[in-house]
């Protein structure tokens, strides 16, 4: 019984994490038709922001030593700035190109960001300990204990999801964003500022990446310059499974991927477990063969101006 509860919590927490990642990608895709492969590297940057920029073997905490509130604000702000810069310096100049071109540009950006980190911080993994109290266990009923961090990830995800829904439904700019996501050109013809809407999407995507950086580093305790790449792959898969362009789909896809990976890890016998990711991808292929448009239907991606 306790094993089942632990697996469920673990699945939900992985799912939440992937859902947040897929949402960060989905937000940009919805207004810009950009699949941003640099999203994982935004998370990496959030992680490295915690320590003093140096290639020393042992990391010295910088922002990581701040008061928790200040720490969160600083990391999130840095990642938002990076996201915004990547719009104004890079993506803005290719935003009228095809989605394929933009995607390739995002690969290039991601690769560049990784190499900048490599240059500044060196290639060795660095240990960082933030919020150590969260990695402990908490007893949730007789004899069943789970990691606090997993509960935190689930809670943070749902707070962010609800906040995002309220933002998109209740605020003027939120409604403008939904309109622009559906028909960018029409929104502009009604006076919605296209550039601001896209910049806002980058801000939201950076906000999510910043928070994810904190959750991720708390969990792993290690920084490496390529740590964003493998998780990005899962975010991308989650986005595709959910249905490109649908934010609900991104969340559904994130949970689907997270739950499937955790359940597979739990039920597969030991010697097959190393093939878990391969099996996840196989399931993805099967899902997409049956539903090429993804799990959640959207109004198809329209041409934009």
């Amino acid at each position, binding site marked *: 019984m306790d094993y089942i509860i632990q697996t469920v919590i673990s699945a939900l927490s992985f799912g939440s994490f992937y859902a947040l990642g897929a949402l960060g990608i989905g937000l940009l895709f919805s207004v810009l038709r950009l699949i941003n492969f640099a999203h994982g590297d935004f998370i990496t940057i959030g992680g490295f922001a915690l320590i003093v920029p140096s290639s020393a073997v042992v990391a010295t905490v910088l922002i990581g030593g701040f008061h928790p509130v200040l720490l969160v604000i600083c990391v999130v702000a840095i990642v938002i700035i990076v996201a915004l810069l990547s719009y104004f310096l890079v993506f803005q100049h290719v935003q009228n190109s095809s989605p394929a071109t933009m995607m390739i540009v995002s690969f290039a950006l991601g690769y560049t960001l990784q190499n900048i980190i490599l240059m500044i911080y060196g290639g060795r993994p660095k240990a960082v300990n933030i919020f150590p109290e969260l990695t402990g266990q908490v007893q949730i009923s007789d004899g069943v204990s789970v990691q606090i961090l997993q509960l935190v990830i689930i809670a943070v995800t749902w707070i962010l999801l609800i906040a995002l829904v309220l933002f998109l439904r209740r605020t003027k700019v939120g*409604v403008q964003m*939904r309109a622009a996501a559906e028909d960018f050109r029409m929104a502009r*013809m009604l*006076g919605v500022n296209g550039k601001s809407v896209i910049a806002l999407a980058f801000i939201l995507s950076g906000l999510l990446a910043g928070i994810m950086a904190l959750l991720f580093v708390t969990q792993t305790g290690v920084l490496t310059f390529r740590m964003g790449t493998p998780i990005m792959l899962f975010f991308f898969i989650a986005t595709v499974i959910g249905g490109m362009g649908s934010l609900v789909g991104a969340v559904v896809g994130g949970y689907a991927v997270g739950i499937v990976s955790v359940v597979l890890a739990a039920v597969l016998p030991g010697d097959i477990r190393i093939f878990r990711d391969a099996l996840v991808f196989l399931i993805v292929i099967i899902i997409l063969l049956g539903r090429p448009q993804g799990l959640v239907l959207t109004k198809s991606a329209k041409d934009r101006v």
Partner: protein
Amino acid sequence: MLLSVDNITVHYSRLPALREVSVFVDEGEIVCIVGPNGAGKSTTLLSISGVLNPTSGDITFDGKRINGMSPEAVARAGISQVPEGRHVFTTLNVEENLRIGTSIRQDRSDIEKDFKKVLEIFPVLAERRKQAAGKLSGGEQQMLVIGRALLTSPRIMTIDEPSLGLAPNLVDRVYETLLELRKDRGLTLLIVEQSSERALKSADRLYVLRSGQMQLEGNVADLQDGEKVRQAYFGFEESTTDDDEVAF
């Protein structure tokens, strides 16, 4: 002159879709551009709205040059377009659709008044206020997009084929509404249609566009017999058959 399109040439690819086309609209006028498929009517309106950028020529609105401006800047300047195919935001509800265009306005207090007025003009929109706009019928969607364009408080509204896909009685309703809007608030209208029939009834002036070139311009009063329009529309030098009942 409120809006003046002066000798614009517009390219999608190497061949121009519009060749040195000129259109002007005076304040308070209803002007119609008619022409067959592919004539360049939509291209003209999209150029005015800043969606397309002419390769040569100028567009001025209220004395200011507006070509090269972004679509949102053109909307702010006071030109609102109801494009071909309506383009309602299907996932937004009716009220959200209507309110999208109000963000560019400074006159906060008048927005609510105008919002109420639009719901009065189109009572069906009031009934469906909280319903997703994608669930409206074609006619209701046409009313929604006209109402939405009105709420940007434009000085001139351009409409691309308002009668497309509507039953004749609904087309009458739409035109009645447009004429009333002109009468009540001095709205200037530039309307694109395939057929000249409606234009000859409702407009003040008429342009005939074919193959990217302007064929004819004139006061509707002078064109009532239809022969000139027919020639310009089909490109006949002279009516060579007796078949004057060609439907167009």
